[in-house]
């Protein structure tokens, strides 16, 4: 067999927790005890379901206020984009850029990249496997960095607390946004990049 190079072609499965190679017929890893799958089970369906969930959560996360500012007797809510615009008006362009990239650009780009990866796997696209694997690793890496905005809210709420003068309160969007980040992280975890390479293996076998 000239192309017997992958674990799957040798009837081996790689444990996702301890990387041990075991016979594909086993259901549990003999080394660490976790459940074994040749490929992550129902990878595409699960990933897509989670992606749709986070896309839905993304709407309230952007429309509703992420933080309220109670100044004297006035209370004003601000959304993520509202906060970015305010920072630009105040002249803090670099911070506005960080918030914009972390809270707007990264989550939406990540969602689109994951949709694209799922689509290429479903279509059985050939070519550019390496680039798509890099793309997947990028989505995996940047996933948690979107939490910055939620943490900023948590810190400001605890720090800026001068009763009656200036108080920050968290908004519902913070919860929705945390949901978006967590759900997309699980989506990235349930996606199996090896599916892209399996298409390549099948093609090689057909030739």
């Amino acid at each position: 067999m000239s192309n017997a190079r992958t674990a799957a072609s040798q009837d081996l499965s790689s444990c996702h927790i301890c990387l041990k190679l075991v016979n594909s017929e086993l259901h549990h890893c003999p080394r660490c005890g976790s459940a074994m799958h040749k490929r992550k089970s129902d990878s595409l369906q699960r990933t897509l379901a989670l992606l749709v969930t986070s896309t839905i959560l993304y709407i309230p996360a952007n429309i509703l206020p992420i933080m309220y500012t109670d100044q004297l007797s006035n209370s004003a809510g601000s959304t993520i984009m509202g906060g970015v615009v305010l920072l630009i008006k105040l002249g803090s362009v670099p911070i506005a850029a960080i918030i914009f990239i972390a809270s707007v650009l990264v989550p939406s780009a990540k969602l689109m990249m994951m949709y694209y990866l799922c689509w290429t796997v479903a279509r059985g696209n050939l070519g550019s496997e390496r680039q798509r694997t890099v793309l997947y690793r990028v989505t995996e890496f940047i996933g948690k960095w979107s939490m910055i905005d939620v943490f900023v809210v948590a810190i400001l709420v605890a720090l800026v607390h001068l009763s009656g003068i200036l108080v920050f309160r968290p908004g519902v969007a913070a919860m929705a946004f945390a949901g978006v980040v967590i759900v997309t992280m699980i989506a990235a975890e349930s996606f199996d990049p090896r599916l892209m390479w399996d298409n390549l293996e099948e093609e090689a076998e057909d030739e």
Partner: protein
Amino acid sequence: MAWVPAASGNRYAPAMTQAASFQADADTNSLGDAVAGSTDRARIACPSCDLLFDVTDLPDGATANCSRCGNFLTTNKSDAFERVTSACIAALVMLAVACAFPFMQFSRAGLENTMTLPQTVMELWNNNMPWLAIIVASFILIIPAVVTICMLVLSITLTRNHSPSWLRQLGSTVFHLQNWSMVEVFFVGVLVSLVKIAKMATIVLGTSFWAYAAFTVLFTLAVTNLDKFQSWQKIEALAAE
């Protein structure tokens, strides 16, 4: 089957030239070099593309990357567990300091408010957001603390060549939870909030701020030094004895 390392595969270490010479070949014959009990050769399948590699003879200090997709496979550092132990001990001390002392102080027009790290969580709870409080607490304090303690126990046990029955459980806890710690993200969040309110009032950084910064560095150091593949090879070898 000669595998030519792709140009971008070289970025990890100069030792990559050696690591790249490992054959991506499933037909590995037993050479009698017992690495892990009954299994004769240390083989690894690339987590991204499933290609098989024999990493038995990975030299000390070398890093192996997948020759097809470039994904990181494993790195072999003989003193890795000692490094993890020392980083974890220092990290735990820093975390304790970070929780006990004031994090930042905010003052404006003669009024001031001091904030501690646990307060970031408590204030969310007091504002009727218990779930968000739990999420934030988990990501910045609970998971990092649990992972650090588990890494410490794991590295000490492995350095001393012990094989208690709970070692497997400990190993899977560490590698399950590792991805869910957001220490470094929180720290960037702190910096962003600092700049956001710097114009509004006077901010004084507390002891806890610096301790948490140190914790971030030490925690990252421990995580990067604890290689998943090598740890499990050692756990298995010890269990087989």
